């Protein structure tokens, strides 16, 4: 366990990192229309300022020795009862700072981009407010020093995601998608809640330092349970199997949202959670295996879905699922993989943001049409967009020297270090990545123009292209920088630990094989979608294509297994409530009323019948007394 450094100097500003965008969100959301004119710029500024502080902190951190790079800041005791205590306290370490920088820098770029993208939206101010809220929550998630506070950030990003997915609320599909995302995430939250509770019951604390300090004393069963629960949480937030189905619907949100939340940052929170809890997963082997299985399944599902979707955003979303599957797989590998999970997360954050923003730029020029079958040959009219998109494309499929190459190859390596099966699956998925990404690029920028009649494609304004360019630069150099210049492995080592296992073959064999597979995939796609004409109407396709278009029937399964039974139960209980429970209550009242109606009939109005009842009563009284006396 590392010693916490007091938060002094620039590190005393940890809370400010969160407070800035939070204040921005509060001002924009509660300030109402009067902030319409300047609000969006304030939104950009707060995130940028946090970014600057983040960079300063990184610099400050680098001046300390690796063991002294964990800073703690406690504001006040937050929740306390009995022996339970959770503080409003933050922890900044090598892992958090990576996220801080990713969130704030990519966040700033996307904010800037949104200035252009959302320029004509009436609710632009609200959009920026919610975007700021997201940044604040995400920062809280990665800076919290205990699981309960992490949960606040966790749910906060979920809220922001919900709000932003259904930003265009007048579209019923958008509203429904937001709701779906939130509810599925809640399933994950159950996992997180239970994990937190189990930690408290086991360790008596929910603070990172406390839990990790004594984790090894707990039984493996308990640790496995905690691990599986955390995995459930991660599945929800990171759209992993079986909680993956919300992510594709989430593309209903504005494209910058898809870029920031549903590609670069929020969906990777699950990876953060697993890596942050590495102590637990390292000690709970079966939980780690489960993580790998989930990662692999999702990796493939995402890739398959991404290969069949004609909607550019949904195809990218499939890709996101798949890439996060890589990260999750890596995170499940143990100390040999944690670092690479984060590495890939970082590079993915950059290039996927670039891809999404590029897609947004394309849509911007195409009247918000998302159907790639209506694109084609756009490289001529959108030069910058096409250029940056292609750079990011090269990064994602893992062509050296773009950053995806380094991070993905590391994961494939690590997979082989663990088991050849995992390695081969990961490697083949890389080939699939080559296929679907090439398909996307080909359909969008190459081939013949299949534009709709009223489409007048044009390049986006500078406010949108400049972030694209910056991200493309990042996608080009980040990988190299983190491998050759500042070694991410040694940077993260104090947090995650690092382990290497000797492989059977020299490493270039794996690299080359992967590359070849990618190129094969890319070539198939190129032949199919750039050389041949792409029909405007989607062909019927094979069963696999159709299944992939249906997102591998994830929604249908959910519907049949969960949604419909829930509604049946609900209706059944409503019926029971009305007829059974309320029926009993009203029935009792009706019974008394009916009894009353019957009894009053005995009051016949005939004096003689009254006399009879008196005589009868008298006889009974006599009998009663006689009987009592006899007995």
């Amino acid at each position, binding site marked *: 366990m590392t010693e916490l450094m007091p938060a002094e100097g620039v590190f005393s500003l940890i809370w400010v990192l969160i407070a800035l965008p939070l204040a921005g969100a509060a001002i924009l959301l509660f300030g109402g229309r009067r902030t319409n004119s300047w609000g969006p710029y304030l939104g950009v500024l707060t995130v940028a300022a946090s970014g600057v502080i983040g960079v300063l902190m990184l610099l400050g951190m680098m001046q300390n020795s690796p063991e002294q790079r964990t800073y703690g800041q406690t504001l006040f005791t937050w929740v306390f009862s009995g022996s339970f205590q959770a503080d409003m306290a933050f922890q900044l370490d090598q892992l958090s700072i990576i996220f801080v920088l990713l969130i704030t820098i990519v966040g700033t770029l996307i904010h800037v981009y949104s200035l252009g993208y959302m320029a004509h939206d009436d609710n632009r101010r609200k959009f920026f407010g919610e975007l700021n809220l997201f940044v604040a929550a995400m920062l809280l998630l990665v800076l919290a020093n205990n699981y309960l506070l992490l949960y606040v950030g966790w749910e906060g990003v979920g809220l922001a995601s919900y709000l932003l997915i259904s930003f265009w*609320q007048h579209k019923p599909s958008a509203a429904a998608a937001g709701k779906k995302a939130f509810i599925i995430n809640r399933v994950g939250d159950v996992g997180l809640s239970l994990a937190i*509770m189990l930690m408290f019951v086991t360790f008596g604390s929910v603070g990172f330092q406390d839990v990790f300090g004594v984790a090894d004393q707990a039984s493996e069963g308990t640790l496995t349970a905690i691990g599986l629960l955390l995995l459930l949480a991660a599945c929800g937030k990171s759209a992993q199997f079986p909680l993956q189905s919300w992510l594709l619907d989430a593309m209903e949100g504005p494209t910058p949202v898809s870029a920031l939340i549903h590609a670069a940052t929020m969906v990777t929170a699950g990876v953060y959670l697993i890596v942050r809890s590495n102590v637990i997963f390292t000690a709970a082997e079966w939980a780690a295996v489960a993580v790998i299985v989930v990662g692999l399944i999702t990796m493939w599902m995402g890739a398959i879905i991404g290969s069949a979707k004609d909607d550019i955003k949904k195809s990218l979303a499939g890709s996101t699922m798949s890439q996060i599957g890589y990260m999750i797989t890596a995170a499940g590998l143990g100390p040999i993989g944690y670092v690479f999970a984060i590495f890939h997360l970082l590079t993915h954050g950059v290039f996927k943001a670039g891809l999404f923003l590029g897609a947004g730029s394309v849509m911007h020029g195409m009247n918000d049409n998302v159907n790639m079958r209506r694109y084609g040959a756009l490289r001529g009219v959108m030069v910058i967009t096409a250029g940056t998109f292609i750079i990011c494309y090269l990064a994602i499929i893992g062509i050296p020297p773009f950053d995806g190459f380094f991070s993905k190859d590391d994961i494939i390596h690590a997979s082989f270090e663990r088991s050849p099966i995992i390695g081969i699956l990961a490697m083949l998925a890389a080939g699939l990545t080559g296929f679907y990404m090439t398909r996307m690029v080909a359909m969008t920028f190459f081939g013949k123009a299949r534009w709709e009649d009223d489409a007048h494609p044009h390049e986006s304004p500078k406010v949108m292209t400049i972030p694209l360019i910056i991200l493309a630069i990042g996608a080009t150099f980040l990988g190299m920088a983190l491998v050759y210049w500042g070694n991410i492995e040694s940077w993260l080592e104090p947090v995650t630990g690092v382990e290497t296992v000797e492989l059977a073959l020299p490493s270039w064999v794996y690299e080359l094989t992967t590359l070849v597979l990618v190129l094969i995939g890319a070539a198939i796609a190129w032949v199919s979608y750039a050389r041949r004409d792409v029909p405007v109407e989607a062909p019927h396709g094979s069963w696999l294509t159709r299944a992939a278009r249906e997102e591998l029937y994830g929604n249908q399964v959910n519907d049949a297994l969960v949604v419909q039974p829930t509604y049946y139960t609900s209706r059944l209980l409503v019926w029971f409530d009305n007829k059974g429970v309320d029926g009993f*209550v009203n029935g009792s009242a009706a019974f008394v009323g009916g009894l009353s109606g019957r009894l009053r009939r005995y009051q016949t109005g005939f004096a003689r019948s009254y006399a009879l009842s008196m005589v009868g009563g008298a006889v009974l009284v006599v009998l009663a007394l006689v009987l009592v006396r006899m007995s």
Partner: protein
Amino acid sequence: MTTFPWLTTLGVVPLVGSVVVALLPRGRGLLAKQVALFFAVLTLGLTVAMALQFQGDSSEPFQFVESHPWIPTFGISYSVGVDGIGLVLVALATTLVPIVILAGWNDVDEDGGRGTVKGYFALILVLETLMIGVFAATDVFLFYVFFEAMLIPVYFMIGRYGGVQRSYAAVKFLLYSLLGGLFMLASLIGLYVVSAQLTGTGTFDFLTLTGLEIDPGTQKLLFLGFFFAFAVKAPLWPFHTWLPDAAAEAKPGTAVLLIGVLDKVGTFGMIRYCLPIFPAASEFYAPVVIGMALIGIFYGAFVALSQSDMKRLFAYSSMSHFGFIALGIFVFTSQGQSGSVVYMVAHGLSTAALFLTAGFLMARHGGSSAIADYAGVNKPAPVLAGFFMIAALSSLALPGLISFIGEFLVLLGAFERYLWVGALATVGIVITAAYVLRLYQRTMTGPVKPELEGMHDLRGREITALVPIAALTIVLGIFPAPLLNVINPAVDRVMTSVGATDPTPTVGLGTTVEGTDK
């Protein structure tokens, strides 16, 4: 410790206000509202002044204690005092009353209704007095008197000022509550007789009663009467069916006071009276109560999912929430019980936010509470939709809001004691999210209904009523220490009186979290 009779003053002020309002001439509706608001705000001010003098770490079980003999023949005294639990609930009541008055400003008009404007506001103030009394009483008989007397103003508020089915709802409410109350009366009498047998002179003094060593068999009988009354009041499954009707027919303001504060008396009674006076019986019945609570959590949520009426939905949702509260109380952990009390406050606030916002919405569309009558409200009335969102989030216990702290502590407390109970209850949060967001989706989003185009957004008065609720929900969620500081010692005392201790962690560890040196 001051000797100023804080609690009596607190109770008398709204009563005086009520009399003043009632004596105003008919037709001076505006003046009646203003006077009522003045007295309500005055009461709130006094509450704040009192709360500031409350000593969280005091060793006395009750503070601001007053005691005068009332009916010595039966050992009854006028004794009031609050512990942390009582204090926060009194504060909840006095906070919500001015808000409800402000929010219900135009709910009653002089010509349309059966009752007068001043009548409605006078009833609210009477109710406030009784609510303060019920939370402040430390004599069980006095508590009972307030407990039952509260029914009457609410009965009139529903029956006179409610919707179409108001009479049915009001009578159902009254009789169901009375049924509970009368069984409690039977137990109360039994308790008195038992105390007379054990101490020589019968008494209703709470502290004396908690010190009695009542035979467990007797406890089990007496417990039932008390618990039944509280379970009806709260309401727990299956004693809940009065609530949807009452909530659906009542004015939003009435519903807020009814569900937000009054029903808390049920759960308050459980933690204040059932547990300390009948520790053995509480332990004996805990599995049953926990079962009822669990069923209630899911039952309420599932039924809420299919409701087509907003107010009924809120009612079933409350039932689900009350399941959580009861669960927290009966798992006998300090987290569970502290959580329950926090939950009570949080639920009061979220109910208020939901009902009032929905009330504002309904007032803009002919008073209809059918969900199907609304769609896309977000467009014409974004501020309203925003408050509705906050209310909804508060209801589904979004972390960062006060309701989360209550819910989490309750679940944690349950989980600690009975792992599977806690785990099962946690699943409930998914369904909660489902019905809350479904409601939001149906009413606030989508294409605007043509007849809702041009709907006015919230105005100053309405916003003023909602802002304090929203602010408290958020601020207390981030900084709940003012609540927890006073609640925890009271809960500790309850724990001591039932002889329960928290389970200890399986892996030994200090109780501090990194970065604090408490």
